[in-house]
C-alpha cells in the first residue's frame, strides 16, 4: 500500500501533527523516519495513507504546522520526496 511520510523537525512536532490529524479523523501514526530520509540523522515522521494527503495538508496549513518534507513510498522500499 502506498503511503506518505510527513517528516517533522522534532518528535514533539510529529506528535502535535499526528494529534491534529487524528482529531480531524485522519489516521496518523508517528514513527522514526527511515534513515535515508532523516536528514541530519534521527527524526520522526507521521505516516498517513495516500488518499488523505490533500486533506492533511489543508488541516496542517490551517493550524500552522508546516511539514518539513513529505515523502511517498515508491513500492520498492525507497522513498521519493514530494514537491509541495
Amino acid at each position, binding site marked *: 500500500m502506498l503511503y506518505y511520510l510527513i517528516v517533522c*523537525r*522534532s*518528535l*514533539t*512536532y510529529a*506528535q*502535535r501533527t499526528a*494529534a491534529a490529524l487524528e482529531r480531524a479523523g485522519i489516521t496518523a501514526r*508517528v*514513527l*522514526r523516519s527511515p534513515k535515508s530520509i532523516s*536528514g*541530519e*540523522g*534521527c*527524526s*520522526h515522521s507521521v505516516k498517513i495513507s495516500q488518499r488523505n494527503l490533500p486533506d492533511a495538508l489543508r488541516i496542517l496549513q490551517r493550524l500552522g504546522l508546516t511539514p518539513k518534507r513529505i515523502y511517498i513510498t515508491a513500492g520498492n522500499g525507497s522513498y521519493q520526496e514530494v514537491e509541495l
Partner: protein
Amino acid sequence: MIYLDSAATTMQKPASVARASAWAMEHLASPGRGGHRPAMAAAETAFACREEAAKLFHVSQPERVVFTFNATHGLNIAIGTLAKPGSRVVISGYEHNAVTRPLHGIPELELRVARGPLFDPQATLEAFRRELDRGADLAVCTHVSNVFGFILPVEEIAALCREKGVALIVDASQSAGCLPLDFEALGAAFVAMPGHKGLYGPQGTGLLLCGMDPKPLLAGGTGSESRLQTMPAFLPDRLEAGTHNMPGLAGLLEGLRFVRRRGVENIAAQESLLIRHLGEGMERIPGARVFLAQDPMAQSGVLSFQIEGWDCEALGDALGERGFALRAGLHCAPLAHESAGTLEQGTVRASLSVFNTHRETEKLLRTLRTLASGGGAPS
C-alpha cells in the same frame, strides 16, 4: 504525622501519581530513542504531559513546555539565557536563592531589588515601576513568596515589563497548581516551576514554559538531528539533553490531571480558607507573631510565624516530636526574610496542600498553645 510542608514538596499525592510512576518503571523506555513500543509509549506519555501542562497554563504550543529537573534548573536556563555580564536586572524583595544565586554568579551584573513591604502588592508594583524606569534589561519575579505566601502582583508587573520592553522571568514555584497562571497573557520570556509541589508530581520533575528561544544549559543526545554536533534549534529538544525521567513524568502527568480536574480556583479557595483559619487561630496565642495578610487575596496557603521565647528551629523540632512536619529557618530565601525583617530570627512555616484538613490545623493550634504557654522545652 500531619504534613504541613507542601511549599517544599507536596508529600501527599493523588494515588494515581505513585501508580503511574511505578507503571512507568516497568513499561516505558526513552522517548525519541527507538521506534519500538516501550519507546513510543514513553513518547506518548511525555507528549500527554506537555499537552496537559499547556492546557493548564495556556501555552499555545506544547513544545514550549520543557521538562526540567526542578524549578531551579528552569530558572538557571532562563537566567543563563537572558542575564549577561553588565546586565541591569530588577528582582523582587522576595526571591529565593534559586534566583539570586545564579544572578550573583554573573560578573559585573547590576542587581537591583524592587523592595516593598510584606503583603503590599501595590508598593511592590510601584517599586518595580521605579526600578524599570531607571533602565533595565531583565526583571525576575516570584509569583508567591515561599516564606510568607505573599502573592506578588505578577500580572501587573508583566504588563509593566511589556510596556517597557523588558524581558520577564517568573518563578512560579509556589503558585503553579495553586493559583491561576496564564502564560500567554503574561507574555513572560520564561516561567519556571517544579513538578513536585502544587502540581503533585514526583520530585525530580519541573517545567519551563518558554516564550523565547533559550540557551541550553546542558548539551547531549536528544534523539534528533544526531549528525549535528550542536544542540537542535527547536524546542523542546534544545533544552532536553539526555534521558528523560519517565517515572517522574508519568507521575507528573497524573498530578496535572488531578489539578485540572479539581480546578485551580477551587484549590486556591480551599487553601486560602484554611490558612486564614490557621493564621487567625495563631494570632490568638499569646506570644505568637503571625505573618498573616490583612487582605486574604494577598496570601496563598503559606504562613510564617514565630513564638516568643522559642528559637525557630527548636520550635520546628518540638513540633516534629509531636507529629507535625513544618519547616523552620530561612527557607533558602534570605532576601525574603530580610525584606520582612526576620533574617536574624528566621520563622517557622506552615504550608498547605489540598490534602490538609480543618482538623489538622486545629491540632496544630492546640499544640502551639501548649508550647507557647510553657508546655514544652523552649531554648
